[in-house]
């Protein structure tokens, strides 16, 4: 793709030919990243896809044997944890789309309107974003574990501590609150940047025409924010599906809260390594990339028409 676009202007518009030096520079700028991208991203991805159809412990190449679809068969028909993980990832996705992301947008909108103390809110909500998810997990673990801060505050000892992580009926929601703590700030920041670029004249015009606040947002602000909206949808989707670090910090590879990212790691790390982990990775890859490609195609098609 990059090659053809680089050549196009030359043939169509007959502008001055780029010098040999320019072309070398261009080739270097396009070629090197492409080379490393293919080497470090696409080759491993392809290797993972191939390996997901084999049995292998991950050490000696001579031990690889062909498995056909056995790994997938195993996952889909013999592994209940897979469906638990799907359910948890689906909750994660739903929560982010319905609760965390809209909250981030709402905050951004309020801060953009410069409500009283907006600078304070802005920094307060932004602070968690500078922490990695792993660190977020460590902090919340300190807060919520049986001998942690919250249970201490409630005056509970470890034998009667509130079960935040061990009660499987609620632990996914505890994790969701933890993840949202960071995600809301992230979305707020992205959206705020977009809002700053919206021409205030548009809003004034809407107000003069008698539009309510909500109508202005829905019919004027939101449509002008389309590029940012696309980014936010994609980011929310990716963040929900690739989730791993925070859960790993709290549960390790035990199945305390099965999600796809953990299942990949659990089946590929250590001496229990098997290519079932690769098969999980492929499933996760398809789940992430499928909807995103479909969504982006639809959006770009709308742009063209």
């Amino acid at each position, binding site marked *: 793709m990059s090659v053809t676009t680089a050549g196009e202007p030359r043939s169509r518009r007959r502008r001055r030919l780029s010098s040999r030096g320019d072309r070398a520079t261009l080739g270097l700028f396009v070629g090197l990243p492409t080379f490393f991208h293919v080497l470090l991203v696409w080759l491993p991805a392809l290797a993972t896809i191939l390996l997901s159809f084999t049995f292998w*412990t991950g050490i000696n190449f001579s031990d690889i044997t062909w498995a056909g679809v*056995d790994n997938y068969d195993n996952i889909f028909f013999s592994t209940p944890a897979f469906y638990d993980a799907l359910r948890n990832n689906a909750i994660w996705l739903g929560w982010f789309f319905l609760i965390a992301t809209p909250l981030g947008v709402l905050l951004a909108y309020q801060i953009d309107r410069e409500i009283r103390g907006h600078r304070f809110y802005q920094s307060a909500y932004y602070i968690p974003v500078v922490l990695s998810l792993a660190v977020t997990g*460590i902090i919340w673990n300190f807060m919520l574990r049986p001998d942690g801060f919250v249970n201490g505050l409630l005056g509970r000892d470890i034998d009667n501590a509130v079960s935040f992580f061990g009660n499987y009926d609620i632990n996914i929601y505890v994790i969701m609150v933890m993840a949202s703590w960071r995600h809301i700030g992230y979305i707020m920041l992205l959206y705020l940047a977009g809002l700053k670029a919206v021409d205030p004249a548009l809003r004034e015009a809407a107000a003069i025409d008698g539009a309510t606040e909500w109508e202005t947002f829905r019919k004027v602000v939101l449509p002008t924010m389309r590029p940012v909206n696309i980014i936010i949808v994609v980011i929310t989707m990716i963040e929900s599906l690739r989730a791993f670090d925070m859960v790993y910090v709290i549960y*390790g590879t035990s199945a305390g809260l099965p999600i796809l990212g953990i299942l990949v790691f659990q089946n590929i790390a250590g001496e229990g390594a098997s290519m079932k982990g690769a098969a999980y990775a492929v499933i996760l890859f398809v789940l992430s990339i499928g909807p995103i490609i479909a969504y982006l195609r639809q959006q770009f098609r709308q742009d063209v028409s």
Partner: protein
Amino acid sequence: MGDMDRSVLTSQGFRPNRRQFLIGAAGVLGAGAFMSSCGGSSSLSFGARTVDESPTTQLKGLISAYEAASGNTVVYNATESNAFQNNLSQYLQGTPDDCFQWMAGFRMQFFAEQGLLTDISDVWDEIGDQYNDSYKIASTGLDGKQYFVPQSWYPWGLHFRKSMLADLGIDPDGIYDWDDFLGMLDGMKSKGLVGFAAGDKGGWEAMGTFDILNARINGYQYHVDLMAGREQWTDARTREVFTYWEQLVPYMNDNVLDLEWDGAMQLLLQRKAGAMLMGSWFGGNFLEQSQEDYDDLWIIPFPEINPEHARDTIDAPIDGFCVAANGENTDGGKDLIKFAGSKEGMQAMLDTGVPMTSANKNQDTSSYDSFQKQQLAVMDEAKYITQFLDRDTRPDFAGPVVGPAFQQWFRDPSSIDGILESLQEQWDALPPL
């Protein structure tokens, strides 16, 4: 039966883990950096799979004794145990430390089969007479050569505080069978305490309870056969293990899935629970708290259930050392491992004052305290030694399948039939080894 029958099973398994995996990751990086900066015959490196205080003191004692005895310099690299375990394949294929800490049985055999460990049969020719056969079996790869030198072992037994039993007027030696055991638990419960402290957040802790219940109810052979897939998880005998286990649930703390092994230990340490089934490694943690707490700690074999099997089996995982095949100084590694396995090396570790039960049969046990001597007594009562569920069965089955299944059981003990069916189905779906 004699010593030959103490066939030690295959293995994987873990030592207690702490959460400093970041430190662990830094340790791995540090190890790489150190490796490139040193070399030569008089310098070698040692990889510890712990960053905890007590075992570190112990290992450093060994290393300085070795340096003094041999004149070689040793670079000590430490990694948090979970991180070490998860990265071991990559570590051994890269630039590993020459000698490193690992586990006996299946977990060692797996890496030996892959050609990542150095054959140390010649070391065994020199120090072999200092070990019982069971240890040699546990150190031997599938090809009949030795790849491992044992350091220590710890029995999985019923731990409690002597003072708490005395308060109830119960003599520890009087707890022999299941009824005695339940009687003690009732006593604890009537005082408002947790009877049987349990934690399974890590997913492996409860495996010890399954092991011992299965061995007590169905015997050693059935347990071994089940682990190897020769018996069925759906068998009525396997099912019976859970009827007994369920009897213990009312005596357990409510938050089993919130606590890891150290949480359960805290219950015992803080006198909130009466008893706990665990490996004796945590004696050091009691000692860190105070000498008084350590002196109060006691262990007895898990009670008899089926008189036919009495108390003849025990989980006693063996920890020790291996020499990496890809190390820069394998001869140095072998020299260090020989020292570590010798009486002098063991003594250097014991001299640090950190409780340890040496695997070396020539060890002078007169310096052992009463808790250590009791561990030996518990061990001696057993005819058969198993390693631990996650060292005795396939690693791609134990961690990803059995661990979550037991956690599921804690959530809803009544769903046991479905859980066992699923376990068997997942065993059957495993790829050929």
